């Protein structure tokens, strides 16, 4: 199983991630009464980027982006996609750290490019990350405390037995908080100030072109996938769907349907996440921080207190 997951789950993640990327562009466009690009547009972009020539600012410029992409793929291995999960070592904590490495690699690369716009973009990126990490950490800690484990797989398995976390009253507040910060995690509207194309030439990726840009797009797609999948895994029970798969237990089909259910849940979450926040105009970074440190943090904090007290 693990061996299969090792090969399959990156593939699923890549494809789904590209799909969500395209989908989100489409949804945003529709919300704004635009037609928008086709859903497969990111795939086209990647392929085209590979064929284009690029510039490099040195070995380290290349190293950063490769580090970013490969660590994003490693991250996928730690994520239960349906019933597939290649690596479990270290649990959610290791997962959190690996989540950090993708942006970190991009930041290194962007900084090596020595473009002031990249620097500004990275600074914003990290501040935004700090802003949403505060509620995110609280949310994850709540979940881990509630289930008394640090393993993602185990969290999903417990939910299979005892119902979705989002359904249990103790974890509903963290769930809401996660939804509120989801756009920030995904870097989508209204939190797109990091890569503001008009203002700082797309920020960190200002100097990226050709294969660098392609790598970045792939990484971004994975990042979007992870952000949503994490929610599904810890709040929506991953592959579980009200005992639907129980009859199939132990067969290959359970795995396949598990993945499908998982992806459907993800799509749903993407919609919700986008709709919840799409009405806001773009936040300035301070506004974003103030917002994220106010409501989502407060909600998740209350959630954590509830969980600790009811423990």
């Amino acid at each position: 199983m693990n061996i299969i997951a090792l090969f399959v789950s990156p593939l699923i993640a890549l494809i789904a991630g590209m799909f969500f990327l395209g989908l989100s562009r489409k949804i945003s466009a529709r919300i704004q009464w635009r037609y928008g690009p086709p859903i497969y547009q990111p795939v086209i972009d990647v392929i085209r980027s590979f064929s284009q020539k690029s510039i490099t600012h040195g070995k380290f410029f290349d190293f950063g982006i490769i580090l970013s992409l490969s660590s994003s793929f490693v991250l996928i291995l730690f994520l239960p996609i349906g019933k597939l999960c290649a690596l479990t070592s270290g649990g959610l904590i290791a997962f959190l750290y690996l989540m950090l490495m993708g942006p970190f690699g991009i930041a290194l690369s962007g900084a090596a490019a020595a473009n002031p716009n990249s620097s500004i973009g990275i600074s914003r990126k990290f501040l935004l990350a700090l802003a949403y990490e505060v509620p995110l950490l609280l949310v994850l800690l709540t979940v881990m405390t509630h289930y008394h484990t640090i393993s993602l797989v185990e969290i999903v398995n417990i939910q299979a037995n005892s119902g979705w976390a989002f359904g249990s009253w103790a974890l509903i507040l963290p769930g809401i908080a996660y939804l509120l910060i989801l756009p920030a995690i995904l870097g989508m509207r209204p939190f797109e100030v990091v890569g503001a194309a008009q203002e700082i030439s797309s920020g960190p990726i200002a100097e990226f072109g050709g294969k660098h840009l392609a790598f970045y797009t792939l990484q971004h797609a994975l990042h979007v996938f992870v952000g949503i999948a994490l929610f599904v895994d810890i709040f929506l029970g991953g592959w579980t769907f009200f005992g639907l798969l129980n009859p199939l237990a132990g067969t290959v089909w359970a795995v396949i349907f598990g993945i499908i259910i998982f992806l459907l849940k993800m799509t749903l979450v993407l919609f919700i996440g986008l709709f919840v926040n799409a009405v806001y105009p773009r936040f300035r970074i301070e506004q974003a921080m103030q917002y994220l440190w106010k409501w989502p943090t407060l909600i998740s904090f209350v959630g954590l207190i509830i969980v600790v007290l009811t423990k």
Partner: protein
Amino acid sequence: MSLELLLIIAFSGAFLTYLSGKISSQLRDGVAVLISLGLVAIVSFLYNVQTETVFYQGFFGISLILRMNSLAWFFAIAIVSFTALCIIYSLSYMKDCERSNYYYFMMLLINASMLTIVLAGDLVTFFVAWEIMSWSTFLLISYNRNGALQAGIKYIVLSLIGSMCMLVGILSIYTSFGTVNIADVANHLTPSSVGYKLFLLIIFSITFGIKNAIMPLHTWLPDAYAESPSPFSAVLSGMLTRMGVFGFLLIMYVIVGMKTTLHLGRGFLSFNTILCWLGAITIVIPTFIAMLQNDAKKLLAWHGIGQGGYMIVGIAFGTSLGAAGGIFHTLNHATYIVLLFLSVGAIEYSTNGLRDLNSLGGLFKKMPIAFFGGLLGISGLIGVPLTNGFVSKWLIYKTLILGNAPFLAFAALLGTWGTVLSVYKFLHNLFLGQLPEEHKEIKKAPLTMQIPIVILSFTIILFGILPGLPLKVINSIIVAAGFQALDINIWGVTSETGTLNMLNIFAAIAVFGAIFWGIFKVARKSTPVDQYDNYAAGAAVPKNKYHYTVEYYAPFYRMGKPFLKDIFDMFYNRIAEAIGSICDSVRKIYTGYVGSYVMYIVLFIASLIFVQLTWSIF
């Protein structure tokens, strides 16, 4: 190899170095390196040795004892190795500095005294070595003159307060039990009252808290780190400050005993919970203050405080995982903070003493070794997987989460994210971005400076991938302290609530890295471009504005600056001023007018007679 001989070599080596410096500086360098490496060799031969010897009885008839066990060995080997690396590094760093004999002498003296501290089998030896360490550190902190003087005074005053507390504690033990032998004291202490144990714990915690810079007592540290010579900053932050951790281990788990310590008080008001929370505060606030720093060494110094918090949280939490994590983090912290200080030192060396984060940049092409040292250092500091920092932090987080202390865990994790921001700023402003014109031609860092950086970088990765190597020793330490043994493998930790396997993470990253490196190579070749050949959206950016460094996290600063002040430092300064003015007014009683002096005499007699006649109290 007896322990006395080891210490004799250590101490006399220091003197020998000083004396040989009077003959020639080459000889001195040779002797210093030889002594420090020799100590490394001797200590490593002492692995797994358990001895205890009485070496002296002339101090008030107290048996002064040296003993070797796994705890002592662990710290001893760390001390001697890091000092040896810093000594090697100093060979070129300190080449043209004044009083270099003195510098080496003090370095080796501090080394020897730290070694004595960890080998001490009784509290008097411990205290004596502790004090020697304190004053020699003071003498070396002040070495850089100017700003260093204030730092030195701050350090020594706090340090004196700490050691006076410890002296009271030790003597209280001595008078109560008539022995200062650590093992005996532990036995005697078991039946004594809870209040007394608590008193001991608190009074020693002040001492070790000052040394380890726990939050309200940290104020000496930033200045001291920033103003010392860089190799010494490295030793200071890497090992010397962590003598506080050693002290905590000693008092909490050896002297008072694990079981007792963990059951002092109830609920939130128990000793170790409060210590944990102090540790948590120490993690968060300094890390965020670090973000505001513009001095590379000061930034690292604030992180030094913050990382100290992890150790305290880990040790004070009182689980096997926590204690192991805390101890392991001490070692890991030493590796990467030493590495970082040495990298900054290399920059200082090359740019004639610059360490201002706003005036440097783009040095990664000029000083690749220092850059990779810095990169791995900050990775370790953050705890990026595959570096050793990850493993120890993982152990701490895990035990905090599973031990139902999510708020502590939150503080610890938040600290990590703060760390990411500030160390990225550090890396970016020093090494990445544009290279300023004036640093186009810089001195090359010599080999002796690069070797320690390379060794430390290698160590970070080694312990990151194979954490089992040090954890094996740590496991025996915590078992000796009475904790349950951990299930240690060469690649990590196995336990029923989740395993850590660094090897498969390493393999995964390596495989994916190789794949994408391959893809990258196969794809169309990219064109190398010049530094200034940048896309600036058509705007004409002046050359000196190309590097965005000043106020790197400007929005955050705007928000956080009013809150992120070192209020404790201000508070202490206020106290110091108040004491100063009180002192000034006290001496005004010596008016200089002899009539009033005679008046004092008459007053003295008169008041005594008055008291006696009225109340007859004598």
